[in-house]
């Protein structure tokens, strides 16, 4: 189990003012959880993810994975970044196979696995292209394939579908659900789409900025319902879904005029 | 002093160098003299060719090389000729006890020095070639290092390297002896033709000052001892210690002004000693493949005029 207790983060801002990016956030991610974090721009979602990934120390609080404190980044937590972090000197397939290379998998095997994942994200044709030859959305999909390749215990995904069109996005959502369902992986997922959060998450946390804190938590089962029925539309059109969407919308809107504008 | 002249000198210990230190050259000639120190005769000639230097102190080997290439300069004063201030020192334990043991050994001398010339001449006179005796052209500090380390068997050097090598080696032959075997050398003050034409009075006064110090040196040994002010002045100007300078002075082989001005050295045109040495040196350098031409006559590169005027 991944346990975040009372995590606070202060950044050093300009002119000696601190930026309070995360305020006493507590969260457990257990076996089979699909946790989605939702919130306005700048509310600390990426900060929380970075802390879990081990890229950022906490000012206060602790993060433990199966009882042991998280010291730094590791292959047990796969990360899909908000920013493009593909290696410009490697082809797409080598980028996807990078983690497997680190794990010592043979070239043939890792390329097979990578090719399969590229097929899943719809980029089979671009295996030998370089990242700068891809569109923004395609690069994002390569990043997803790369994180899936090493089959980490926990997937940390920072707005992975932000640059995707609705169709591709739906397909990627379904792909992710099937991976999650098949392998029982834990997933921590950041999005700014309320629909996406509701559709994917078994747990949804809603965050508000300055300081970044959790203002609401939900336990949901739309995703399980989807796995049974495979019917997206009926879920999206169900009244529970619509009600929750409006509720969260109100929480987010009630908070601030424009995220970051208030002091 | 409205007239300016730049004079290039080297670190050789000469009695006249005291006059550089105390400014007597300037006061005697009435010129504004800028003395510049050079590390080799080749550099002096390069500077003369650039026009920045008008008068310079050089050895006969670079002199021969430069004149053979057509540089218009004249020697007007012979500062010294082959003496015991330069010698081939061989390392104890090198197995060299006489000139006959040189075969297969490694010897060194400073590049384009008169020493280098004499070392090569010596080897030739012994019937050896550079195939059988290896001759390295390396600067003096490096010769001392290589000698101490045992990488070379001998070095043809002057002070302070000479003193240093003698600590762990012995003199095999001196420059004077090599000269007597037919490879004489000299060092001289030279002047560019252009400057000489309009400044003969300067050259005369310059020569007079040298004469004065040379006379003092031959006359009054105590004034040039290690404790003397003169030796200290030399050490301050040139570097090293007063002891080193005094020792070096004692090994010089100086000519009197009269001898220099005579037909034997500067006054004999093509037949004068200096011109002959230049020609022989040039011929030798051509054989060595160092220069490509030898002039028919080197008479144009020596002049006794300044010295004659002092008498």
């Amino acid at each position, binding site marked *: 189990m991944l346990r975040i207790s009372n995590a*606070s983060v*202060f*950044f*050093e801002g300009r002119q000696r003012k*601190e930026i*309070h990016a995360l*305020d006493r956030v507590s969260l457990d991610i257990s076996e089979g959880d699909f946790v989605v974090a939702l919130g306005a721009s700048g509310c600390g979602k990426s900060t929380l993810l*970075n802390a879990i990934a*081990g*890229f*950022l*120390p*906490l*000012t*206060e609080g602790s993060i433990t994975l199966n009882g042991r404190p998280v010291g*730094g980044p590791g292959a047990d937590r796969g990360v899909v970044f908000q920013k493009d972090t593909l290696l410009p000197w490697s082809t797409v397939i080598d980028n996807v196979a990078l983690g497997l290379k680190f794990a010592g998998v043979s070239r043939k095997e890792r390329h097979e696995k990578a090719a399969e994942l590229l097929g899943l994200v719809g980029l089979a044709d671009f295996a030998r292209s370089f990242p700068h030859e891809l569109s923004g959305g395609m690069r994002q999909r390569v990043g997803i394939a790369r994180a899936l390749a090493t089959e980490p215990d926990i997937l940390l995904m920072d707005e992975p579908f932000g640059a995707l069109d609705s169709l591709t996005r739906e397909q990627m959502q379904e792909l992710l659900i099937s991976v999650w369902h098949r392998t029982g992986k834990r997933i921590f997922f950041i999005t700014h789409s309320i629909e996406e959060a509701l559709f994917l998450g078994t747990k949804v946390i809603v965050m508000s900025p300055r*300081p970044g*804190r*959790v*203002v*609401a*938590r*939900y*336990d*949901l*089962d739309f995703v399980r319902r989807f796995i049974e029925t495979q019917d997206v539309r009926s879920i999206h059109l169900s009244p*529970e879904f619509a009600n*929750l969407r409006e*509720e969260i919308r109100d*929480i987010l809107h009630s908070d601030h005029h424009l995220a970051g504008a208030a002091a | 002093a409205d007239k300016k002249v*730049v004079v*290039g000198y080297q*670190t050789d210990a000469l009695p006249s160098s005291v006059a550089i230190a105390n400014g007597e050259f300037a006061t005697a000639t009435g010129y504004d003299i800028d*003395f*510049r*120190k*050079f*590390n080799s005769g*080749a*550099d002096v000639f*390069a*500077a003369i*060719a*650039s*026009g*920045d*230097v008008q008068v310079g102190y050089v050895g006969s080997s670079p002199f021969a090389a430069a004149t053979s290439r057509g540089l218009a300069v004249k020697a007007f004063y012979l500062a010294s000729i082959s003496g015991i201030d330069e010698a081939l020192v061989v390392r104890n334990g090198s197995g060299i006890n006489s000139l006959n043991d040189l075969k297969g050994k490694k010897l060194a001398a400073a590049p384009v020095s008169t020493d280098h010339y004499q070392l090569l001449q010596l080897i030739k006179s012994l019937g050896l070639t550079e195939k059988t005796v290896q001759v390295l052209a390396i600067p*003096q*500090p490096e010769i*001392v290092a290589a000698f*101490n380390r045992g990488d070379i068997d001998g070095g043809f050097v002057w002070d*302070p*390297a000479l003193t*240093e090598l003698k600590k762990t080696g012995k003199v095999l032959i001196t420059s004077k002896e090599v000269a007597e075997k037919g490879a004489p050398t000299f060092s001289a003050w030279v002047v560019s033709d252009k400057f000489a034409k309009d400044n003969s009075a300067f050259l005369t006064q310059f020569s007079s000052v040298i004469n004065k110090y040379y006379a003092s040196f031959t006359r009054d040994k105590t004034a040039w001892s290690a404790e003397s002010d003169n030796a200290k002045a030399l050490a*301050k*100007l*040139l*570097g*090293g210690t007063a002891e*080193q300078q005094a020792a070096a002075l004692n090994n010089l082989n100086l000519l009197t002004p009269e001898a220099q001005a005579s037909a034997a050295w500067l006054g004999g045109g093509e037949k004068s000693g200096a011109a002959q040495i230049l020609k022989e040196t040039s011929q030798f350098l051509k054989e060595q493949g160092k220069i490509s031409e030898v002039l028919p006559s080197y008479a144009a590169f020596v002049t006794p005029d300044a010295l004659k005027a002092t008498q």
Partner: protein
Amino acid sequence: MTVLELNTTAEKGTVASAKKTVRPIGFGLEGRSTTAISIATAIALIALWWLATELKLVPRLFLPSPAEVLRQFVTIFNDGYAGASLGEHVGASLFRIGLAAALAVLTGIPLGLLMGLNRWAKGVLDTPIEFYWPLPPLSYLPLMIIWLGIGETSKISLLFLAMFAPICLSAQAGVRSVSVERANAAKSLGAKPWQLFIHIVLPSALPEILTGVRIAIGVGWGTLVAAELIASTRGIGFLIMSAAQFLATDVVFVGIAIISLCAFGFSFTLRLLEKILVPWKGKS
């Protein structure tokens, strides 16, 4: 599916101010000082030197003891050496290096950037630079004397030539690390070519240029002795060579120590400059 908690009260109420702030875990050194380790190493090296001379591993003539060098330093400091005071020697060398470095920076950076951007500049300047730069200064020293005389001009030119190429080459290489997107963005904001040059290309290339300048200054010091072989009357290179002629190794060591000290000063300034000018490196 139920709302678990809407803990707006429970978690509000900010943590007391003036908190310890954090930074993303950096990469490599990121700010951690190495000064202490460096000083310890320096002390260890001097101790080793002292030991080597104490045990007479190397003849004194070639490796004088630290004490001797210090003594010699004091003597030279008080009495000067070879006709000039220590201050004059150091001053002369610093002036030459400083002026040559300034000239090399002022010409090398713009020309290098231009060569990275413009086909004609590259084509025309490439040949002479690629030609002269690998030439050993000692090999064209006589030519410099002949062409430029024995004054300061030839010395400073020699140092300038030695320093120009590394700066120019790294500026050229720096241009290649300007990202096309960034340049495009600037052009769309209406940047004229010279503005692109100053506001985008120069800052993007700055990290590489600064490395080039550091290397160039090292090369400059390394060329100092060669430059001051030209009929000098003062300068640290001149001091070293004069001393070497007389096998005064202790004086040579004094010269070496002074060069090290000066070079260290330059290098320190440049590191500082790097910290101030390119704090964003690795964060873009």
